[in-house]
């Protein structure tokens, strides 16, 4: 009666709370996080005080820090970009486009891309930003 028989199986049973917590964490990350395909360019978007939320993002034009363009998961030069863009606009004329530009990119490059998109026939365009954290003003 002095030896404790349950101890022999305890190693397994002690793992159960651990498994519980891990499952809980797993479910949390599955539900709370969003899985998004990573961009071909490293981009740190600017932050803004805008209150417009964005959920689904399909047609995203990425503009890198030094003016590199990427669309549809590929880095493109300007000519190819215009061609690809024209095809996409022709197949979906009313589509909403998003522009994801680096915070350090030249503003004029961003405006050039805006003009490019407009020439290609894009009617609806939004600039993607992150929610503003407390920071200094311009």
């Amino acid at each position, binding site marked *: 009666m002095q030896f404790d028989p349950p101890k022999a199986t305890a190693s397994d049973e002690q793992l159960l709370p651990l498994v519980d917590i891990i499952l809980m964490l797993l479910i949390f*990350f*599955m539900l709370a*996080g969003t899985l998004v395909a990573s961009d071909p360019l490293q981009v740190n978007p600017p932050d803004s005080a805008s209150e*417009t939320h964005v959920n689904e993002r399909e047609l995203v034009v990425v503009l890198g820090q030094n003016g590199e363009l990427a669309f549809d998961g590929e880095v493109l030069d300007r000519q190819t970009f215009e061609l690809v863009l024209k095809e996409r606009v022709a197949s979906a004329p009313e589509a909403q486009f998003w522009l994801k530009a680096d915070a350090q990119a030249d503003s004029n*490059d961003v405006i*050039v891309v805006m003009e490019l*998109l407009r020439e290609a026939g894009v009617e609806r365009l939004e600039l993607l930003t992150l929610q503003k954290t407390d920071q200094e003003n311009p």
Partner: protein
Amino acid sequence: MAAATPTRLARPRRRRSLIGLTPLIDVVFILLIFFMLASNFLRWRAIDLSAPVRAAATVPVEQDVLKIEILMDGMTIDGASITMTQFDQQVSDRLAQDRDLTIVIQPDVGVPLQRTVSTLDRLRSLGASKLNLVRDPQAAGL
């Protein structure tokens, strides 16, 4: 009694080892690490660019227009350079005269996007609604 106890204990142990908890934990751990690394919690916001883009080509000249230039080291309003405190004051004054004042924002070559976006934010918080982004004529393009 002493002989019965070990046999009764041995059975559940053998049944559990048939499935095995350790592989389950391994798989769950791997899934957990995958979701931790792959998911992101960024809070995305958007600024509508459609209207300013469309308006940028046809800025009416005769109408009352406030032109703001963002320079590398400051700003100008209608050509006169200005400090940040004067900026708020002047823009509010102009907006008080005309609620529908069209504001044209022209960032200088090399001004990072963050400053332009912050300026747009600031103007919008002052109550401006008609904001147009215009390219610097000297900008070379991509």
